[in-house]
């Protein structure tokens, strides 16, 4: 019961040399994984000529051109016409005019980004909610055929989801779910819910039943006991599960390409299309990718403790 911090197993204290080697490996690995991210960010603040220069430029003059191009659509004009315009209203206006173009209007980036937010967070919320309830049920009640049902739930992840892309495409067309946020939320929820059930069942199994029983004795219904006693103790598991679900839904590309094209299109299929608008505009693509990385980064940093515990879950006993 008492979670005293007794050393259940003896750990040999690593020597300073071992620590240094381990540290070096970790730093090296971090560098390797961070290089692509750094490269994307650096490209986003290069000018288009700098971005495609060979050998690649490490030292360059940063510019916001990539971000300007990401957020706007532009039309090419004659220098005379541009001269005749009133003074530029901002930095982007100025940069665009220097390329003999004028801003025609906002790009679709923010609406697509918004779609991604709605669909990813919506499906994560649904998958985690359903997963928590299902996991609680499997954990606490004698569900008939529980093992078979759990295996069935797991089996939905055994083939790559894209294998059923065509049937889903046809079904969605029939039901009018193609290119709708609702359709994408349902799809990602369906994919994620099995992961959520399995992860959360592990966490809820670890919460002693006595807590709910105590709450029921204390005058609460099972649902109230679940809400007031089980959920607060399952937050770690829920947070870890939510991150896994969110990352999948946020990054998903194949179904997004297939099922969304217009109003419900998410950012992943949109970002590559930026390159087509006016040549090889790598800085704009990189800018779109940089911004696209931010929500997951923020979410992960906020929940990093829970995530760490979620990943090492089961490996370390209290």
């Amino acid at each position: 019961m008492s979670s005293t911090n007794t050393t259940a197993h003896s750990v040999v204290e690593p020597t300073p040399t071992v620590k240094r080697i381990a540290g070096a490996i970790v730093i090296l690995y971090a560098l390797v994984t961070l290089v692509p991210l750094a490269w994307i960010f650096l490209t986003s603040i290069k000018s288009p000529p700098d971005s495609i220069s060979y050998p690649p430029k490490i030292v360059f003059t940063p510019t916001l051109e990539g971000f300007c191009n990401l957020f706007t659509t532009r039309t090419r004009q004659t220098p005379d016409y541009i001269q005749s315009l009133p003074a530029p209203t901002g930095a982007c206006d100025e940069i665009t005019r220097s390329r003999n173009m004028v801003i025609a209007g906002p790009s679709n980036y923010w609406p697509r980004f918004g779609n991604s937010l709605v669909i990813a967070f919506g499906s994560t919320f649904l998958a985690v909610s359903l997963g928590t309830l299902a996991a609680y049920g499997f954990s606490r009640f004698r569900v008939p055929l529980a093992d078979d049902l759990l295996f069935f739930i797991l089996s939905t992840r055994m083939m790559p989801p894209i294998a059923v892309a065509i049937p889903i495409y046809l079904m969605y067309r029939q039901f009018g779910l193609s290119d709708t946020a609702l359709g994408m939320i349902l799809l990602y929820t369906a994919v994620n819910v099995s992961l959520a059930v399995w992860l959360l069942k592990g966490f809820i199994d670890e919460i002693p039943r006595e807590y709910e029983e105590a709450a029921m004795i204390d005058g609460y219904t099972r649902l109230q006991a679940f809400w007031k006693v089980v959920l607060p103790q399952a937050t770690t598991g829920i947070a870890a599960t939510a991150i896994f679900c969110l990352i999948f839904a946020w990054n998903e590309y194949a179904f997004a390409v297939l099922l969304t094209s217009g109003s419900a299109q998410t950012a992943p299929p949109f970002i590559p299309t930026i390159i087509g608008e006016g040549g090889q505009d790598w800085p704009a693509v990189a800018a779109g990718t940089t911004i696209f990385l931010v929500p997951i980064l923020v979410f992960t940093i906020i929940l990093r403790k829970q995530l760490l515990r979620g990943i090492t879950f089961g490996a370390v006993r209290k």
Partner: protein
Amino acid sequence: MSEIKIVNLRKQFGDFVAVEDSSFTVEDGEFLALLGPSGCGKTTTLRMIAGLELPTSGKIHLDGEDVTFNRASARDIAFVFQLFALYPHMNVFRNISFPLLSQGVAKAEIRARVEETAKLLRIDHILDRSVSGLAGGDRQRVALGRAIVRRPKCFLMDEPLGTLDAEFREVMVHELRELHNRIHATTVYVTHDQHEAMAMADKIAVMNHGVIEQYGTPQEIYNRPASMYVADFIGSPPMNFMRFHSGLKRGMRSIFLDGVEVAVPEMGEDAAPGEMALGVRPEHIRFSDRSPIRGAVYGSEYLGTNQIVAVETAAGIVKARVSADRSFRLGEAVGLEFNPAKLAVFDCASGRAIASSLYAEARHG
């Protein structure tokens, strides 16, 4: 406060019968201990009274009302769990106030009642602490506080002292009994520890394999065990059994143990010839050189105020609790004398005690 009445309660898990046809009544303000080894059905019985488990058949009446199938939350009972089950995400105050919150008690009254309860249990100085950092005894008191704060109809406790170390357990036994004397709550207390049961309970139900072997006061259970199981389970060292083969007739006042006549309480019933056991408590044995029941000292255990001497006799090893004054050599020949008024005779086949004047006393008070 109120009376708990259990009628023919039975619980089956698949093929396993956890509780078999139990009936008993805990009177208002009474402290009942359900005593037995693990797996004997005592916790299942308690959980059925609490509503955490539904009986296969039988009835549970609380204060005259049939609550057999009522939800736990609707029974107005408190339960103290073996591992306390304090809500880890709440501090001490919130833990104790939790049952009041479900009843919609006003905030000011909640504060007053929690503080009053905390004072009673001497934990009013730790109300703001998190429960995860508390020592075992304080956790125990918080769990008790959560139970008594709403003044329920009865308390159910499932081995609440099981996780405490021996020294502290004695302190808590005393505190629990004192608490009971003060608030007179009907209490059902599950334990496998005979000392806890003996020290605290008004009544004890000794359970074995889902069956209540005996229900009575600690004195009855100790002095007039209804079965060999009870006689063996209660007392340390337990009752000695000296086996003999015989039939019994009503009115007999002695039996023959290896040819030696031993006076016993007057038999109250006949018994067909078979294997019998003479039950003797260690403290009802005296050493007497003239006694025809002979044995050799096998070992002794010095306990300060007295000592337990094991003697090897023709009927097996017999342990006697005698004064610590005399010291014994291993192998020393001794004679044993029993207090005839306190002897019990059991039928080995059924394990049941044979009715005798010893048991008649029980019926006449």
